[in-house]
């Protein structure tokens, strides 16, 4: 039992990725139960990064499969390169009679065929056609499939850790959801955000960080915004501030490099108007309301 207990606590975040406790639990649950882990969350909360760090943390190689609107489920298993074979037969290149030469395994196929347990990232599954997840049900359940052209069976020796991310652009089918472990990455609160920023900018001055985060969360609270700034934009913004050598005092009355945070024209204009009307930015957590009282 002790050994089994250890199994569940294998992933605990890495030096470069701060994961919340529920996320760690969800990852370990998916690893132990050998179920796909479905991750959703606001853009810029590190859904895709998670897979790389799970792969680092567990010491398993990683394969990624980036889904596009034209992706088909069958492409993930294998592709039969008929055009190459036709070309070879016409212009004489290689042994045309051996169909296996023209079967190329897709990411899912490679993960099954690999001798070691793999981490497989299926990125942005919602980009694909509505039927896409349904077409993968059996393969994800049984972790095996047959290459129709040759009759070969590809079966997973070690069931890969499957991490699926979704941006919520399409509804996923129920049958697919039932097989997944689900986790929604919440937007980090200020305390977690400080840890995340520390990973990227370890030597940041504490007062500056406070001012930066107050402005950042204040911006996110503004309901008029067309697009809220996300974690990755915050990190970029801090880089810009550091390079320009901005001091905490300068931040109090003004938000510099706003282009790093706000990506919509209307949002930037709204902020300029706020500036012109000499609106006052909050300078302490108290002004942001009770949610941020620390």
């Amino acid at each position, binding site marked *: *039992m002790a050994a*089994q*207990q250890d*199994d*569940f606590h294998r992933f605990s975040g890495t030096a470069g990725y701060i994961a919340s*406790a*529920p996320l760690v*639990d*969800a990852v*370990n*649950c998916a690893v*132990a*139960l050998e*179920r796909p882990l*479905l991750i*959703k969350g606001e853009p810029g909360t590190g859904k895709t990064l998670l897979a790389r760090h799970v792969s680092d943390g567990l010491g398993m190689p990683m394969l990624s499969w980036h889904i596009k609107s034209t992706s088909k489920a069958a492409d993930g298993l294998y592709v039969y390169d*008929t*055009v190459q074979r*036709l070309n070879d*037969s*016409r212009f004489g290149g290689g042994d045309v009679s051996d169909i296996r030469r023209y079967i190329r395994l897709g990411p899912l196929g490679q993960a099954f065929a690999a001798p070691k347990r793999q981490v497989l990232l299926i990125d942005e599954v919602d980009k694909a056609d509505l039927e896409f997840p349904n077409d993968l049900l059996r393969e994800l359940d049984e972790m095996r499939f047959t290459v129709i052209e040759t009759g070969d069976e590809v079966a997973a020796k070690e069931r890969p850790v499957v991490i699926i991310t979704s941006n*919520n*652009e*399409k509804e996923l089918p*129920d049958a697919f*959801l*039932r*097989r*997944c*472990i*689900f*986790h*929604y990455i*919440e937007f980090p609160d200020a305390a977690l955000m400080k840890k995340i920023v520390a990973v990227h900018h370890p030597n940041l001055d504490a007062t500056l960080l406070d001012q930066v985060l107050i402005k950042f969360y204040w911006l996110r609270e503004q*309901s*008029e915004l*067309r*697009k809220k700034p996300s974690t990755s934009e915050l990190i970029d913004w801090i880089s810009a501030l550091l390079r320009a050598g901005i001091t905490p005092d300068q931040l109090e009355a003004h938000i510099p490099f706003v282009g790093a945070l706000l990506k919509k024209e*209307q949002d930037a204009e709204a902020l300029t108007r706020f500036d012109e009307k000499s609106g006052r930015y909050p300078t302490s957590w108290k002004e942001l309301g*009770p949610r941020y009282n620390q």
Partner: protein
Amino acid sequence: MFLDLFYGLRDEGIPVALQEWMTLLDALRRGMHGSSLLRFYHLARACLVKSETFYDAYDRVFARVFRGVEGRFDDVADEILQWLADPKNFPNLSPEELAALERLSSDELMRRFLETLAEQTERHDGGGKWVGTGGKSPYGHGGQHPTGIRVGGPGRSRSAMKVAEDRKFRDYRTDVALDVRQMRVALKRLRQLTRTGLATELDLDETIDETCKNAGEIEMVFRAPKKNDVRLVLLMDVGGTMDPYYEPMSQLLTALHDERGLREFRPFYFHNCVYDHVYSRARLTRADAVPTGDILRSLDERWKLLIVGDAAMHPSELLEGHGGINPHNTSPTPGMTWLQRLAGHFERAVWINPDEQKLWDHTYTTRLVRRLFPMFHLSVDGLASAVQALVGARV
């Protein structure tokens, strides 16, 4: 108690099936909840709930089912024993499913469960209790959201009950809040793909087929690319009673203008009700006036009509000639007649109402308009249903 959770979730409309329940049991069997209710809370959520839009409902059910449980785990253990001993509590189970349940309720499972639960009580009795005693309980507030009554000082490790009762996933409920992105996602479905225009896209499968038939001589086959065929005309109520909805309205407009997939999109504006003119700009000046009849003539019935407004007005504005609220610009034809013409002309037309649904029946004019147009609330769910009504299969 555990079954209460299961059925409680189902009652709240969360689609939890036996498969998810078994997954959770499997995880529990492996002891993955550790020894804390908080981790059980996260574990059960990861296994049972498959969309953040249900997180709030999950929080409510969890808080209800496990209210006051922390600190008195003996009862839970009893309940679990009881439940494990009697899997027949599940109605409508097939024999295989029953067998599967019984297999899970082995002695090992019970033993491990009791072990962890015992550990929990000990830890509670020894260390700082999570839940305050003697009238300090944070759970006595009649099920309301208990902001600000976090007793017992700054607990570094938050308890499951506090997490559940915080209900911070409220905003993710699809029947309430909306932002531009959510609207765009809902509007994404506003499409009917058809192949029209020039054959410019290489049809690979067909090319291979034809080439094989042609004995290996390569024969290219082209086809027209898929395009969205949806044309949308928007009529939007502005001013007056719509002013409080300025923000969601402008977000909806942004989302519609962003939606480049539409084949054509024409927005028009009106005030309170449609009469013989609508306006191409929200200022509603005479220079921007477009005869409503022109719209009916120039746009054929395959255009989709989307009307946004609260449909709440004085009955005379809807039903009487010269009923328009603007005295300089009245029409002899009642607004109702114009609405009937619109509803009759377009094959698919919907009305989106920003007012809450429960208010609709209180207004006479809203009830009348609802008879003409299928009406939906301006929320993620409502918008999705409206889009479905515009392009989905006919019911």
